[in-house]
């Protein structure tokens, strides 16, 4: 990757936190090349898109009142949906980090044959309609799937269980972590690694004590993106895991069904979902002092 050239300054310099905060000020701002007139123009031109993003979200908030949220939030089926969503997405994120990190490193350092092919393969779930992912998972792990027969004999049932929810979420969302972590690994300065090697560090020690700490912010932001995407997963879940309140009904499923029978449920859960996603993304951006997740 040629990313090293454009790496954020704090990753190239010393790792001392004080230093990082200091170099975080954007160098561009010191030498303004954008004149006030043009700045206004750009601000004005940005408005339509901003409004387009904000109006539907604001409308959701306006259509329901805080009282309504509170009373809806005390209903068991809503609590169940929130609990299942939080539980499954956290596990899906953990699985993505645990098994995605080696893969991300392999991709970043070209340690796999056919790297480009695998790199593209990982992108696929993010561009495919989730329904395709759901059908594919069913064909692989369903009762009559490629592996389903074997699993069935072992007494393992995946379809219609929370495990299926987690698998659907991981399938769709893991790529966000893998991509982010892979970029993080790729921009670690090779000279630092060489220095560590000269000082007698093993490959594992270099990875554990140099590369991981230097990439943690990229990994964290990737993990949050994976989590947020998993939270919104709908299509693959309803096909592969089905819909059962208290077992496989996540917030998006409850919203979709609620829209048809109980609009209040749908509105409340939509607000909760937006709240979670927005807060998580905002926190990470604040926490990491960076604008590019």
């Amino acid at each position: 990757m040629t990313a090293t050239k454009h790496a954020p300054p704090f990753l190239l310099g010393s790792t001392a936190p004080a230093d990082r905060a200091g170099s975080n000020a954007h160098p561009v701002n010191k030498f303004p090349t954008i004149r006030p007139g043009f700045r206004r123009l750009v601000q004005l031109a940005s408005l339509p898109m901003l409004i387009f993003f904000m109006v539907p979200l604001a409308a959701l908030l306006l259509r329901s009142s805080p009282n309504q949220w509170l009373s809806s939030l005390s209903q068991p089926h809503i609590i169940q949906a929130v609990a299942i969503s939080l539980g499954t997405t956290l596990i899906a994120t953990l699985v993505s980090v645990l098994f995605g990190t080696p893969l991300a490193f392999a991709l970043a350092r070209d340690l796999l044959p056919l790297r480009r092919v695998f790199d593209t393969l990982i992108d696929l779930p993010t561009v495919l309609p989730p329904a395709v992912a759901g059908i594919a998972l069913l064909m692989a792990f369903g009762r009559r799937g490629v592996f389903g027969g074997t699993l069935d004999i072992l007494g393992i049932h995946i379809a219609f269980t929370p495990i299926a929810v987690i698998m659907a979420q991981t399938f769709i969302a893991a790529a966000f972590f893998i991509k982010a972590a892979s970029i993080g690994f790729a921009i670690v300065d090779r000279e630092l690694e060489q220095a560590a090697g000269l000082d007698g560090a093993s490959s594992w020690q270099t990875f554990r004590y140099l590369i991981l700490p230097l990439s943690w912010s990229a990994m964290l932001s990737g993990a949050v993106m994976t989590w947020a995407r998993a939270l919104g997963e709908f299509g693959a879940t309803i096909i592969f895991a089905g819909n059962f309140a208290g077992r496989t009904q996540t917030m998006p499923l409850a919203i979709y069904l609620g829209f048809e029978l109980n609009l209040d449920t749908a509105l409340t859960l939509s607000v909760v979902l937006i709240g979670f996603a927005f807060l998580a993304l905002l926190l990470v951006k604040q926490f990491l002092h960076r604008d590019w997740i």
Partner: protein
Amino acid sequence: MKQRTIILIIITLLLVTACSQKDNAPTSAPQTESDQRETLTIFAAASLTEAFSELGELYEAEHPNVRVMFNFAGSQRLAQQLAHGAPADIFASANQLQMLGAVDAERVDPEDMEMFIGNQLVIVYPPDNPGYVRRPLDLSYPIVDLVLAAEEVPAGQYTMKFLGNASQDGALGSDYKSKVLENVVSYEENVRAVLSKVQLGEADAGIVYESDISNLSPLQIGSVEIPSPFNIYANYYIAPVTDSTRSELAEDFISFVFSTEGQDILIKYGFLPLF
């Protein structure tokens, strides 16, 4: 990399905020050559898909200046779309409740709505019958993984009614309903999804409309009749939409549905004639 990240931000924002499934776009009969023709837009229950498509083609053949467009989806979804102002000329619902939803939204005049065909429920199982389903009682045995339509869907409401009837009757045991519901592994968002999951062998049994399996051979799906004392009679309702600009055409199509020709086509697809 900056560009990549900007693209990533845009993509992820889109993905994260996109929680809703896209609605079914109206599907047209495959004729597009002239725009001179009048277009009749019909919102019809998902279970009517095959039968109404044939009715539409026949109607177009008899009326060369008319193009019939369908929007097939769950009746509850169609009622929602109508309530939110979707333009349509005719609404055909799989039950009365959703038709009344359109009445509440003042898109349908209650005096215009008419029952036009019936349907019944049937138990289905994969051809190799892994759950050993041979009669309705078998659904209450714990080995059966059952898939039903969600209660939001008319088929789901009818299913609950059938289970209630069966429990009240007592022949299958007064706890029949609760035992059957314990076997449910998923409540699907439409009746066709129930059929798909049973056909795929993901579930041991499901409950769908008689008309859903009319074009499937016993090699594709197994079925068990539900005896008439418990079975429900699903009433399909049809009505012109009040603010339609083609109300005469709409009335004409509805009378075509009620004609012997129209009824015969519906019956061919497994629907039940009106009493």
